[in-house]
């Protein structure tokens, strides 16, 4: 009760009027979505720049500076970004192959808050038993905040169950232990 009362008081004091700014974003948010699926690990890396870092990100993507990001430019950028990601399966480094990239129109990225999605895949062999996956993201074009999360997509008779997750405190690295079973 004391804790709640103390927090309530703090909340009441915080209700004093103050000015607010609209999305004064100065960081690149990076969220990795890893999916364990039959025969592969899929990666979707979402990059969401704030308004103050959207310009440099667009500059890095728009190779010819014509304020349009072509499919070819997006693929080059995706390859550069994923080159700074690493994946190991059962403690063995595995290649992440860059796939397509979903890039909204240039003018929508400029104000910040719009997400660019980069896709990649890595091959893996399914076998019954305990396994470990480690993902690390070292892409840091400036101030960045990172997270990584794991999802399961069973199929072809293979079932997956996560038994543990360990994260580095800076969000760069996620280690997942999981069990594979056969139906």
């Amino acid at each position, binding site marked *: 009760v004391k804790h709640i009362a103390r927090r309530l008081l703090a*909340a009441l004091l915080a209700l004093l009027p103050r000015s607010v700014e609209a999305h004064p974003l100065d960081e690149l948010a990076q969220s990795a979505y890893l999916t364990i699926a039959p025969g592969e690990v899929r990666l979707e890396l979402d990059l969401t720049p704030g308004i103050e870092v959207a310009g440099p990100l667009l500059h890095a993507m728009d190779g010819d500076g014509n304020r349009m990001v072509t499919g070819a430019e997006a693929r080059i950028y995706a390859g550069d970004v994923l080159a700074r990601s690493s994946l190991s399966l059962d403690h063995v480094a595995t290649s992440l192959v860059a796939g397509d990239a979903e890039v909204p129109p240039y003018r929508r990225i400029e104000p910040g808050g719009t997400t660019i999605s980069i896709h990649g895949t890595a091959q893996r062999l399914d076998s019954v038993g305990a396994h470990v996956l480690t993902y690390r993201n070292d892409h840091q074009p400036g101030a960045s905040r990172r*997270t990584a999360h794991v999802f399961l997509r069973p199929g072809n008779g293979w079932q997956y169950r996560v038994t543990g997750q360990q994260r580095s405190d800076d969000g760069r690295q996620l280690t997942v232990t999981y069990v594979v079973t056969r139906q």
Partner: protein
Amino acid sequence: MNTLAGVVAVVLGAACSVSYPRPGLAQQAGGSEAAGRFYSDPQTERIVNAADAFLATLTDEQKTAVLFEFRDIEQRARWSNLPEGIFERKGLAWGDLEQAQRAALTNLLEAVLGPEGMENVREQMAADDALPAPGRGSVKFGSAYYYVAFLGRPSASSPWMLQYGGHHLAINATVVGPDLALSPSLTGGQPLKFVSEGKPVYIVLEEAVQGAALLDSFTDAQREKAVIGSQTIDLVLGPGKDGLALQPEGLPGAGMNVQQKAQLLALIEARLGIIMNADHRKAKTAEVERNLEQTYFAWWGPAEPLGAAYWRVTGPSILLEFSPQALGGDPTQHAHNIYREPDNEYGAAWAPLE
């Protein structure tokens, strides 16, 4: 409810009572389909009547703009935390409605969300009006840019969906006979603390207080499991992330004592209270309570100040994320919060598309 007087009452009420008031355990029938047709109940009748009354205020042109097919997958997913100019919504904008149409829409939203939920919608829209407009570009803020849409025709006997949302708000309410699914729904806002019509408002105060109270109740050993990281993280299953199921992390209900379980339930009810009317909330709360042992609470970020940390509730029948937005601003003034029901997004458990 979220005005200062309301939250003070809620917080003090929670703090002073030994056991938290809980709804009963009445559970609506599963499936909701009998002999090949859906049946209805009084709450659904109220919602359908309110929806019909709103549609009756519209011109033919407006009806064309607001009605979509129930199976329109693109429209289902057309919601976002982003403002006008960055994200394009479809339907009818609040700013384009006449006064009588706004009153009818408000009545409908209150039938779906309950009075507390409607108050939250009003406050989120007022917050967006209080947010200074950006100085350049096509980005627009404000209550005028909140959109309503229907997927399918309002009915007590066949599935349909009501969508309402704008910057920081997305209500996706699927009605299937007597059942109502609010998954996925986005709440939060910016600014969270402001003065509206002379009254101080803190939009997420109850959730922030209940979450902090749960964390405070943990022993060191429990806290070690519940606190995953020292840095706040971003929303994981926000817009565009339909159909994904987060793997549970943190401390499960099974690892909590009786008071802590009650606190966890109170935290969940704080969110349900702003997205669900009392009738449907009662059924959902009972379902959550049955699964409480397998429902996890996880925390990323600092314990102070209030409302600055990310927390998550992951259970068999519910996912909650509370995600302060710390990117260069005051994280206690800006939050993206999501509500999802695994395996029942857009009411898929009751009205699958395939």
